[in-house]
Structures are given as structure tokens and as C-alpha cells.
């Protein structure tokens, strides 16, 4: 896939060194607010999410725009955008605006859920490996390296083929499969952080006070990795959304996502020039979302990682 799913993967330069208190501090918050691109991204994202989740019921009530199965009216298929139907109608005469918004629900959910899975797995794994170090770390990182050596698309496709029948309608396997290949980088980053944090004074102090390993990890170390986790997670969401769109291109994606709408819009790529809105609008929404997410992610990194802070 061409979406590099692991942007900061092997880039040690991109992994901020640990600084005590590198969390979402007031300082970072202020820096974030000063970053116009990031703030803009966040606002656009909020607007998009609100539109996707609140839009369809509102449009239904206020303008009679619907896209449920029983609303299909093939006699009005492919109607061009107009005042009453701002994004035109789809192949079965349903409101394309509603369909695109509903597609947004799916795509955003895919992105968020898969990212949560990857955060959960990656942070736990990385923290354990980094905290205990030594041979345990080596073995655990070997497993990560092994999984890295597998083209992730390969793994995703194979997993989808195995689980991919009825459950795929609920999209859970796609979320899980996408999350399961995205946790590797998270694990590496967190491990790196924990490796440096575990010898810091406040950790040693806690240990001297007789705190258990679990307590030290949960209360003292993990909060300090939060910044990095947030930054990387914010970059994972767009990566997952785009990955899902490739699966849609192959017919293995989630029903009714932006990726699927755009992939089906590919039908219009020909000199006949018809029904351009089928490709354009889902792509625009997708691009706007990813654009905002990336700007926000960059902004978060700039805010949370002092190394790239502008002076």
C-alpha cells in the first residue's frame, strides 16, 4: 500500500527523547493553540464529525434527504447535484449527501477504533518490554521485528480472508485487523520512552518506597509517555482510514465507508465524463478529514515535543 502506515517507524529522530513531564501540560496546550494549522484542523475535524453523526437525521427531518434501503428510487438514479440535492443522487437514486455523511461515520469509527486497539496493545506491549528490559525485551522486540518483516497489507488481507464473511458486515474484523498491524510502531516508541524513563530518579524513588512494578508502570511511567502516544495515535487515525480505503478498492473493506464510495466512484474515470460527483465528494470529504488529522497531529507533535518546537 502506498500509505506508509508507520511514518515514524524507524526514524529515531522522530521519537522524542524523554523529558520528565512531557505530558499534555498547560505549556503544550498553549503551544498547540498558537499553531493555526492545528487549530484549524481540529475545528474542521469537529465540524466534519458533527456533520457525519448529526447530519443524516437532521437532513431527513428538515429536507427529506434519505439513503436507507427502502428510500432507493432507481428511476431517479444519477441525478446531478442541484439545490434540493446538493451532492446529487447515487446509482439507486438515494441522496448522495446522506450517503457520504454516513460513509463518514464508518470511516471515522474505523480510524478511531483501530487506533484505540493499536494504542492498547502497543502501549502495554512496549511498556512491559521497556520496563523489564534485558532478555525479555529482546525476545519481545524480536516478535515485533518479525511482524515488521511481514508486509502489513499481506497480513491484513490474509486475516480478512479468514474472518471475512458474516462478521465483516459489522466491520469488527476490519477494525481489529487494521489495529493489529498498527500497534508495532506504537510498541517500539513506548518501549523507547520507558527504557529511558525507568532509570529516572522519580521511578527509583518510587521503587525504593516499595511500590509494585504494576503501580510504578501505571502511575509513574505511563503518564509520562502520554504525549508521545497522543502524537503517534493522532497520526495513526489517518493511516488507518487510508488503509481501509485500499481494502475497499480490493473489495475487502467495510461496507459504506468513504473509501468504498470513492472506490466505486472510480467508474467515472473515463473520457465519457459523467457522474463526476460520485468520485469527487467522498474523495473531498476523505481528503479534508485526513488533511485536518495530519495538521492536528503535526501540531500536537510540535506542541508536545520540544525538540522540534520553533524557537
Amino acid at each position, binding site marked *: 500500500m502506498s500509505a506508509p502506515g508507520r511514518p515514524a517507524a524507524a*526514524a529515531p529522530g522522530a521519537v522524542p527523547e524523554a523529558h520528565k513531564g512531557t505530558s499534555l501540560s498547560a505549556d503544550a496546550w498553549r503551544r498547540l493553540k498558537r499553531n493555526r*494549522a492545528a487549530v484549524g484542523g481540529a475545528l474542521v475535524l469537529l465540524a466534519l464529525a458533527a456533520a457525519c453523526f448529526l447530519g443524516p437525521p437532521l437532513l431527513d427531518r428538515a429536507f427529506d434527504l434519505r439513503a436507507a434501503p427502502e428510500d432507493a428510487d432507481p428511476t431517479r438514479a444519477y441525478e446531478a447535484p442541484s439545490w434540493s440535492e446538493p451532492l446529487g443522487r447515487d446509482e439507486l437514486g438515494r441522496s448522495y449527501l446522506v450517503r457520504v455523511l454516513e460513509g463518514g461515520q464508518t470511516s471515522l469509527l474505523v480510524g478511531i477504533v483501530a487506533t484505540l486497539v493499536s494504542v492498547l496493545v502497543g502501549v502495554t506491549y512496549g511498556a512491559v518490554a521497556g520496563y523489564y528490559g534485558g532478555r525479555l525485551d529482546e525476545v*519481545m522486540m*524480536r*516478535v515485533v521485528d*518479525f511482524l515488521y518483516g511481514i508486509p502489513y497489507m499481506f497480513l491484513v*488481507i490474509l486475516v480478512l480472508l479468514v474472518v471475512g464473511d458474516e462478521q465483516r458486515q459489522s466491520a469488527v474484523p476490519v477494525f481489529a485487523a487494521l489495529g493489529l498491524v498498527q500497534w508495532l510502531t506504537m510498541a517500539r516508541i513506548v518501549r523507547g520512552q520507558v527504557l529511558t524513563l525507568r532509570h529516572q530518579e522519580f521511578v527509583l524513588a518510587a521503587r525504593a518506597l516499595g511500590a509494585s512494578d504494576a503501580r510504578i508502570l501505571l502511575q509513574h511511567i505511563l503518564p509520562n509517555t502520554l504525549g508521545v502516544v497522543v502524537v503517534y495515535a493522532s497520526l495513526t487515525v489517518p493511516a488507518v482510514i487510508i488503509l481501509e480505503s*485500499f481494502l475497499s478498492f480490493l473489495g475487502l473493506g467495510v461496507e459504506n465507508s468513504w473509501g468504498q464510495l470513492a472506490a466505486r466512484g472510480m467508474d467515472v474515470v473515463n473520457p465519457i465524463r459523467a457522474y463526476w460527483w460520485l468520485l469527487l465528494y467522498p*474523495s473531498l470529504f476523505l481528503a479534508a478529514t485526513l488533511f485536518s488529522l495530519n495538521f492536528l497531529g503535526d501540531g500536537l507533535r510540535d506542541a508536545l515535543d520540544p525538540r522540534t518546537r520553533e524557537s
Partner: protein
Amino acid sequence: MGGTRLPYLALGAGALLLALALALWAGVAEGLALLLGLGLLAAPAWFPARVTRGVAGVYVLALAFTALNVLVEDLDVGSGLAVAAALGVAGAAFLPPAVRRRVTFLVPSLVLLLFVTCVLMFQAPGNPFASEKQTTQQAQQAQQRRFKVRDTAVAYFGDYLHDLVFKGTMGPAVKVQGRNVEDLLRPALPVSMSLGLLALLLATLLGLVLGIRAGLRPGSVSDFSSMALGMVGISLPNFVIGAGFLLVLALGLGWFPVAGWGGYQHLVLPALTLALPYAAYIARLARNGTIEVMQQDFVRTARAKGLTEREVVLKHALKGILLPVVSFLGPAAAGVFTGSFVVETLFGVPGMGRWFVNGALNRDYAVVLGCAIIYCTLITVFNLLVDLAYAWLDPRVRNAA
């Protein structure tokens, strides 16, 4: 650290659970084989240096023997073994530690990957011979024999590995018959490699130019415009980007053919489409690198000497900017080589990506395994190259090694 036994136990229990789950799901033999594979992968952590050296030698031997078998027709086993053994000894003795480390990792990875792939393919519904019309059991069995498809994943995996190592063949393909998988992939590999390399180079050049331009004046209009331009690359699935290129450059202006393979003109759009997302990432890395480097003392000194901005960047700063970019090239290469199937489908390029995807969708087991071997090896080799390039660029790493 106190109480370290607990996490080991947890890890072991995890592996056991995983194997148990697999045993329940697929079969006892599969579960045991997974345990063995994980053990093979984990064991080197306990090896003393001398053993590692020996193991690396054995692995080099196995790799060399297999490669010889694949490359040389009708290889005599004795001489093949002799050459491979010599290479193995030489490898154990002379290979630099970095390479040795990658090799000791590559072999168990490959074996485990092949095994996992076999299990997944066999667990996926369907089979290579399924056809729309019902065929008789007899015809199905005859086909299974001809294409050496056994009934269980473990049996198939055993046969496959044996044939690969001792006969040097990746087995017959089912969907395009008459050729072995290595013969089918042989013409596809250079296509994908060259397309990928070209895309990678385009991505690097484009990314560096955009990124450095942005990083020299962070916060300026040129920063914002460069990054926004780069952002387009990661904000659209590349089938949409490719569609855009097709619509405008091929169908609209007629500058390039819409699909096919056979001349440099066929190369431009796929390479560009493939390159864009990576260019965007590289631009981001280069921008951050530039901002950082430009604040360092030696750059200030160079500026103070009165050098122009261009000279400062080219002569002094570039190395520092390149470091993170180079380390990104490993994963990027993996992504470009393995992820080209969308572009291949869109532009009708006869590369590897289509083999893998169609192989998986058709349950053409041997094709999928062949792609797994090539992808895994490519990624390892690229990571190795990146390690070496990194060491060459960064004196700290070089001295440490």
C-alpha cells in the same frame, strides 16, 4: 530488577495460549508448529556470541543452498552443499555483526511467516480448485495431486519447504498453469523493483526539496504551501490520485497512455502516483530535520563564515537532514514494493502486487507463499541497506558498531 520471573512466565503463558488457540482452531499439529516457530525466533536471545556466530553460519548455508537450487538448473546436491557450506563458514567468520544479525533473524522469520501464511490460507474459506460449476471429486483429487495441494496446512507447509530447499522450486501455480511460481514472479519482480525504486527516488527528491524549503522558514507562506502540497499526498488514497492523473494527464491531455507496459511513457504516471504519499512523509521528516539542524552551532558557524544559504544547506546541513529520511526509507521501500498493487491494477502494470492480491483472492497457495518469501527478503535486505547507510551517515552509530 526484582520479580522478573513473572513477566517471563506471562510471556511463556501467552505463547502457550496462542498455540493452544491455534490448536483448537486449526489443529494440534498447527499449534505445536507455532510453538516451535516462536521458540526458533526467541531462542537467539539466550545464545552466547559464539553460538550466534555458528547459527548464522548454518542459516547462511541453508539460504545459500536454497538460492543455488532456485538459480541453478539441475544442481548436483553434493557440489551445492559444498558451495553452501563454504559460504556458511565464511559467513560465520567474516560477516559484519550487523549483517549477521539480520541473517539470523531472516531465516526463522521466513519459516515462521511461511507457516503462518499456510495456516491462514488453509483456514480461509474456499480452495484453489473451486469453480462455479460443481466438479467431481475425482477431478478435484487429480488436480490436487497435480498441483501438490495437500489436505492440511502442516502437510502442505512441509512439502513446500522441502521442495523449496532441495528442489529449488516454489511449486506450481494453479491459476496460470504450466509454470512454477518462480518463473511467474521472475518477470514481475524487476517490474515492481524498478517501478518501486523510481517511485522511491522521486519521493526522496520531491520530499527533500519541499521539506527543506519549508524547514528553512518555518511558519512562512512557503512553509505552509510546501507542506500543504505534500499533505495532499497523504490525504488521498492513491487510487484517487492515480485517477486524477489519469483523467487529466492521460485522458484529458493525452500525454501518457492510460494503461499497459512496454515503454518509458508507461512508467511516469504509476511511478508518480506511487511516489506521492512517500514524498509527503519525507517532506515532513526533512522539514523537521531542517528546522533542527539549522539551529545547531556548526550551521551558525558556517553562516557566520559568509556562506550562502544554498552552500550552507548543501555542504553542511544536508547530512543531518538526511538521517531521519534515510531511516524512513526502509519502511517506505517495504510499502512501495508491497503496496503497488493498486497502482498496478489501475495502470495495468504486470508487477508483483497483482500476483499477491490475486493469489490471495484465488487461494493460489503457492503464489501467495512465493510473494511472502520475496517480500520478506526484500524488506530485510532493505532494512540492512538502511542500517548500513545510516552507519555511513552518522559517525556516532558507525563508531558504536
